[in-house]
Structures are given as C-alpha cells and as structure tokens.
C-alpha cells in the first residue's frame, strides 16, 4: 500500500495505491464548520445532486446510466465531525480488468459530472428534482422515530446541551426545510464549492499519475481555501452532580441512556486511554457492563458504552424494563466506580488492547476504513497505523485509573415505555 498526496490551493488529492481489491473506490469530501440552520439545506443538497444531473436529467436516467457502468452507484452522506460537518460523495466501481477498457475514465467522468454539472437552469435547481428531494428529506425527518435507540439518544443530548452541536439532529428540521428555495439552494451549492475544504480520495490498483491528472481535469473547484481549526467540541461547564430525566413515549422497551461530558483530556487520552477504558467498561461481550448487567442480572439484551473523541463525549445505552431502572443505574454506577478504584485486572487491559490492536491492524481490509485513517490524519493530524499500534501498547493501568477518575456523569436519561406493554 502506497500513499500519495497532491496539494493544490483549492483541494487535495490523496491516492492510496493497493492491489488488495477488485474495485476502485473514490470519495469526494466537502467540510465546513457546522451551523444548526444549515443542516437541512446541506442534507437537501447532498440528495438533490444524486436526483439528476444536466446530462441525465431524471433519477431514472441517472440510475440507468450507473447500471450501464456496471453498477457505478454514487452514494452521498452528510455527517457531523465534532464542530464540523462533512458532505461526502463516494463511488466504488469494478477495476476495468473485470469489465471493459475505458470504463474507469467513463465512470470518473460520470461521477464528477454528476457533482459539478448539476441540473440547474437560470441559477436555480430543476424544479422537479427539487420537489422530489423535498419529499425525501421530509420522509427522513419523519423516520427519526423508527429507531428508538437513536431517537432516545438525540433526546438526551438535547437535554444535556441544546446549544452544543452534538445535540443537533442530523435528520434536519422542518422549519428550515420550508425556507429552502431552488434559488437559495443553488447559492448554497456555489458557496460550498467556493469555501468548503475539499479532499478527494482514491483507493485501488490504479495508475497514480494518470488518475491524478484525470481528477484535475474533471474537478471544478478553484478557489483558495481558508485555514480550518478546532474540530473538537469543548465543554466548559461540567456538572458536579448528575441529574435524572424521565420522559414518556409509547414504546415496548424503555431506553436507558447515561451521558458524560469530557473535559481536559489530552489528544492521546481521548484516542487511546479512554478508548481502552471504554472497551473494558462497556465495549463488547467481555465488558464489565455486559457481564454484570446482562449476564448476571438478565436486565437487558444490549448494553454498551461509547466514546466520541471529536465530541468529548461518553455515553452508555441499554434497553430495559422500566421497573428495572433504579437497579440498572445502580449496577452501571457501581461498575464505573470500580473502574475509578482500579478494580480491573491487567488481563482486562490486555483484552481491551488486543481488540483495539486488531481493529487498527485490519484497517487495510476495507477501502472506506483506509480513507478514514488518511482523512482523520488530514483533519486532526491523527496518527497512522504504526503510530496507533505503538500508542495503544503504551497505555498503562495507572493511565486508565487516572482517566476513570476524571469522568463525571452529567445526565441519566430514561425514555419510559407506557404502562401497558405490547401494542
């Protein structure tokens, strides 16, 4: 695996040459500071660009073309990374060794043309595509409740700090949707191309020079980009005593979430020590929470803890019967306290390290995970695979006890099922 980076003022091209895959993966990222009121328009934009293009002006024509190119299906997504928001377009296609000569060039043309030559007339997005996209976004916002685990987490985060981007609802907001017009959408599109940080990734068995030149020819981004910084969310106020919030919802299973804000942790603590702490506490089937809350007390089917280092946030989540709320919270607190007191073994640490080490070492098995490593290196000066492995190894028992004692519970949240179970 070889890594090449070409920096231009307007964008960067990253090529990871490897013969491990039968496919070539390409990803185009637009990044800027997140604003709550821009979430909906960004979702809108990432969707409408895949509804049609100037050349293939309906969804049907666009998707027939992608099938003709051996299922060259473009995917888009918008995700929040700490204080920033990332819009990503990606495409995975068969290396032309398996299809026909010339397919790579044709597929790249199709990909970049779809993004940079949208279905726009007189400074406005095509009205039909606009209407269809509006329906898509409406459906997405309405489908928030389809996943109660996710929904209850959003509800807790809103309670913890409604002004912090971690509580922004990534599905979008109806009040912002109503304000979007064909014209403002196109203005936003132009502004995004002009001012967002742009990074392009390629993973596959490609001719590096050739594909780089091909991308330069097709990418129409040429404005100088500003510096960007402070990607992590910081929390100033930390609650000294936790609080409990119970809300009712008509559900069969009650959702217990516990949220902790993290403050004053170093980068390595966030990326390594806390991750190992988390693995021991609630990472998987050998964790303290799984063994004690599920296996010993049969209170739940799933229970996990999670660290989001970009957000300086830790949360624990489980599905329980509401009668077991107090007992579950007590058990979880007990396990967190045991971690503070250092009641875990060197073997627990070894198991946690092994899980992390395997996960890091096998990054090279997946094109999208390879891209993630290089993108996070680009964004936060993150570590490469070898550095990661070294730093995992270095974490000590004392390091883990130290971070455990710095973690404070902010909110204990229960989304409580209605009295009568079974609808």
């Amino acid at each position, binding site marked *: 695996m070889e890594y090449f980076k070409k920096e231009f003022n307007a964008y960067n091209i990253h090529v990871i040459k490897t013969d491990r*895959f039968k496919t070539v993966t390409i990803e185009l990222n637009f990044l800027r500071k997140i604003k709550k009121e821009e979430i909906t328009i960004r979702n809108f934009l990432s969707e409408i660009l895949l509804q049609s293009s100037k050349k293939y002006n309906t969804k049907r024509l666009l998707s027939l073309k992608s099938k003709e190119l051996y299922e060259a299906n473009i995917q888009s997504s918008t995700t929040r990374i700490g204080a920033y928001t990332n819009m990503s377009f990606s495409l995975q296609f068969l290396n032309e060794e398996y299809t026909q000569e010339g397919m790579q060039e044709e597929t790249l043309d199709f990909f970049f043309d779809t993004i940079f030559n949208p279905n726009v007339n007189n400074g406005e997005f095509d009205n039909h595509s606009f209407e269809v996209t509006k329906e898509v976004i409406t459906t997405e916002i309405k489908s928030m409740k389809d996943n109660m685990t996710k929904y209850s987490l959003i509800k807790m985060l809103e309670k913890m700090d409604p002004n912090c981007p971690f509580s922004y609802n990534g599905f979008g907001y109806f009040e912002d949707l109503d304000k979007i017009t064909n014209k403002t959408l196109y203005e936003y599109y132009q502004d995004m191309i002009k001012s967002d940080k742009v990074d392009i990734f390629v993973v596959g068995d490609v001719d590096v020079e050739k594909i780089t030149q091909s991308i330069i020819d097709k990418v129409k981004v040429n404005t100088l980009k500003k510096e960007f910084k402070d990607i992590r969310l910081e929390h100033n106020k930390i609650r000294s005593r936790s609080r409990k919030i119970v809300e009712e919802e008509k559900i069969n299973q009650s959702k217990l979430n516990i949220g902790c804000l993290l403050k004053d942790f170093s980068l390595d603590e966030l990326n390594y020590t806390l991750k190992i702490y988390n693995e021991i506490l609630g990472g998987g089937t050998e964790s303290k929470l799984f063994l004690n809350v599920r296996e010993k007390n049969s209170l739940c089917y799933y229970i996990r803890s999670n660290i989001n280092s970009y957000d300086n946030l830790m949360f624990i989540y489980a599905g329980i019967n509401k009668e077991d709320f107090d007992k579950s919270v007590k058990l979880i607190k007990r396990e967190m306290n045991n971690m503070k007191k250092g009641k875990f073994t060197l073997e627990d640490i070894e198991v946690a390290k092994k899980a992390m080490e395997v996960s890091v070492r096998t990054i090279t098995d997946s094109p999208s995970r390879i891209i993630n490593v290089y993108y996070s290196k680009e964004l936060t000066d993150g570590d490469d695979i070898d550095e990661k492995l070294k730093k995992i190894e270095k974490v000590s028992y004392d390091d883990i006890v130290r971070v455990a004692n710095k973690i404070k519970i902010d909110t204990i949240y229960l989304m409580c099922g209605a009295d009568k179970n079974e*609808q």
Partner: protein
Amino acid sequence: MNNNLRQISINGVDDKLYYKKIDNGMEVFMIPNKNILNIYATFTTKYGSVVDEFVPIKESKMIKVPKGIAHFLEHKVFEQENRQQPFEFYSKSGTDCNAHTSLTNTTYEFFGPNNFQENLEYLLDFVQNPYLTEKNVEKEKGIIEQEIKMYLDDPFWTMYDGIRNNTFINNPTKYPIGGTVESIYKINKNILDKCYKTFYHPSNMFVVLTGNFDPEEAITIIEVNQSKKNFNKMRDIRIKEYKEPDEVVKKEEVVTRNIDMPKLSFGIKINTKKINIDSEYKLNIYISLIFNILFGVSSVFFEKMNNRKYLSMPVGIDKIRGGSHLLITLICETNYPSKLVNEIRKVIENISISSEDLEIYKRSLISGYIRSFDDITSLNDAIVDNVINYNKYNTNTIDIIRNLNINELNNVISSLDLSNTSVYTVVPPNFKEHA
C-alpha cells in the same frame, strides 16, 4: 493435497472454492483470500425457526415445540462447562464471536486475523458441546424478553413479521423467529436438549471459511478435531411437512404504531412449483430481476410514484422462501398507502420487460457478484445462503447471469401467478390518507 479436498474454479474470478464432505457427514466450503488479513468462519446447522414439529432423535413420535426455540437454543449453546466461555476465549485474541438465527438456519461465527487454529477448533468444540442447566436456561429468559421487546419497537420488523403471518397459512415461516415473550417462558432444558441432539448432528451442519487462511491446513484442523468426537449414527431427520395453499390468510391489515412515517409491505405469494424452468437457482435470479426492473430506482413505476409524491424512498425488495412458496415483499414508505397499492397492482397485472432493460440489469448483477469476493462477510453469507437453499455453492453464477435471456424471462413472466397478495400497513396514530 489432503485426501479428497476438491479445488474448484469459480468462473469470472481467480478465486477458488475448496470443498470436502468429511467422514461424519459435515460439509466444509472454503474460499481463501490472501489480500486481506481477516478470517471469517461460520458453523451452521440447517435448523431455524421454521422447525415447529419433528421427531426427536431416538424417539418415534412428532412433538410440537414452543415458538422461538431455535433462537433460544442459539443463546444457550454459548454456555460451557469447565472451560472458558466463548466470548471470553475469543476476546483474548481480539476475535469477534457471534451467532444468529433465521427462519432456516442457526449460524455461529468468529471474525478476526489471529489464532486461526485455536479459534477454529474452539468454534467446533463450543458448538458441539454446550452445557445447559435448569438455572442457566431460566437466566436467559429475561435477556431474550428484552431482545423481543427491542424488535417490537421497530416498524420494519413489525412488517416483516406481519406480512409472513398474513400470507402463510400452515407453513411455520409465518411465526416470529424469536417467538413471543409468552412462548419463550414455556421453554425448558429438557426440550432444548431434544432439539439440540436432533439438529446439531454433524451431518446436518456445515462450515464456511472465507479470508486469509490455508485451506489444506484448515481441513486438517477440522478433520483431526472431528475424529476425536463420537456421534450417534444419524438417520434422516423427520420434520413435519406442510401442505401450503396458494391463497393468503388476510388480504390486508392496518396496525398503528408510535411512528411518524407510514409504511407498508406488499406481499406476493408465488407457488414456484408451478413454474416450468430447469433450475430453481436460475428461477430465483429471474424473479429478483423481474421485481427489481419493475419496482427498483430505475423503474418507470418509481419515476411515476415520485412524480405523484406517493413515494420518495426506494422500494425495498425482498424474497422469503417458505416451502413450496416464495413470498416477495415490496417495502414502501408512503403517505398514500391505498393509492400506492393500486398502482403496484396495475404493474403486476401487466408485466412487460424489454431486452434492453434486461441487458443493463445483467451488468449490475455481474458487478455485484464479482465485488462480493472482496468482502469476506458477504461472500460467506452468500455461500451459507446457497448451501441452505440449493445444497451446494454455485461456481458458475457468472455464466448463469450472462446467459439470462429475454425468451426465458418472458417464459417465467407468463407462468407467474401474481394474484395472491396481501398488504400489511403500519401507520401513526390518527392517520388519514389524503384524497
């Protein structure tokens, strides 16, 4: 080369299939991939939730078992006596371990790049020697109750259960895979033992390996391990067979759930025994192709429904096999359920597909097929699926796809009876469809 380990070429790719049926009847399917680091191993019994009545080993009468027992047993196979528990064992080498139960099978698996020999031996050992006690069976009930309740809050799962229940009359495909909170509390150690002894015999099981390993080494590990164990001689397992009528149970049902976006599952129950074609595998490819061409994102139907705002999200297209019948489900999110259903009916009443459409979709199938070899998880799943449904792994899939043709397609279309349908709709409280 190990005795009788067969190496079989797979058309269209350089990858090879290694196959052997070992002495105790267990089958082993392997496709190595040296380009990646991970190994994915699955160990499957051809025993899933649809087994509702059967003759237990060494008995002579059919017994009926509580719903959800195959899934309950999956949980309990993880209990071990006098040795490390599976999660503990695998976590030491950073290996993931899991299991899942479907309508047709129960599969145990590990995933990871380390300790291949020990991991593989342990997979065979833990699945082939679980330790059930009255106490640990009781303990599991609270956990499974929560698993069932988690699914009750998922509207897509509600539709998956609802449409099967409303289309299948006799075939136990109709019941929820995990059973109900009520049925699982009826399960006890004695009945779990009977199921285990009957369905976890090696002749009813198979191993599938994908990823970075050496097939000769793997088959040796498996054979040495199995030669140390004694199994009863197995006669054919007798499972109750069901005569399934072509009709559905209920043509429509609407249920209310705490959601905001209405959804529906349009089910079409097809008796595939009435279709004249030389291979069932090919028939399944044709049927998937037909419904994807008719209802997929590139279809005229989807474009029309988009324009009328009946649909904005792509239609989910799924196939569920239940004995002699295939249930096709079209999963739609819509504010206009009854109008949309009328439009779906118009399409299936008058199917026409052009050869241009067929050729374009063939490219998409070829691409998906070749790509699956890069992903050891989906490749392993595909092999398991092939073995469960066709008792073998098809190494000539690419040729079957390339040879799909409009005449055969039209032949399939003309013999399809699409008149037995059922609609299961999930709506928010107080939902009214707009005129």
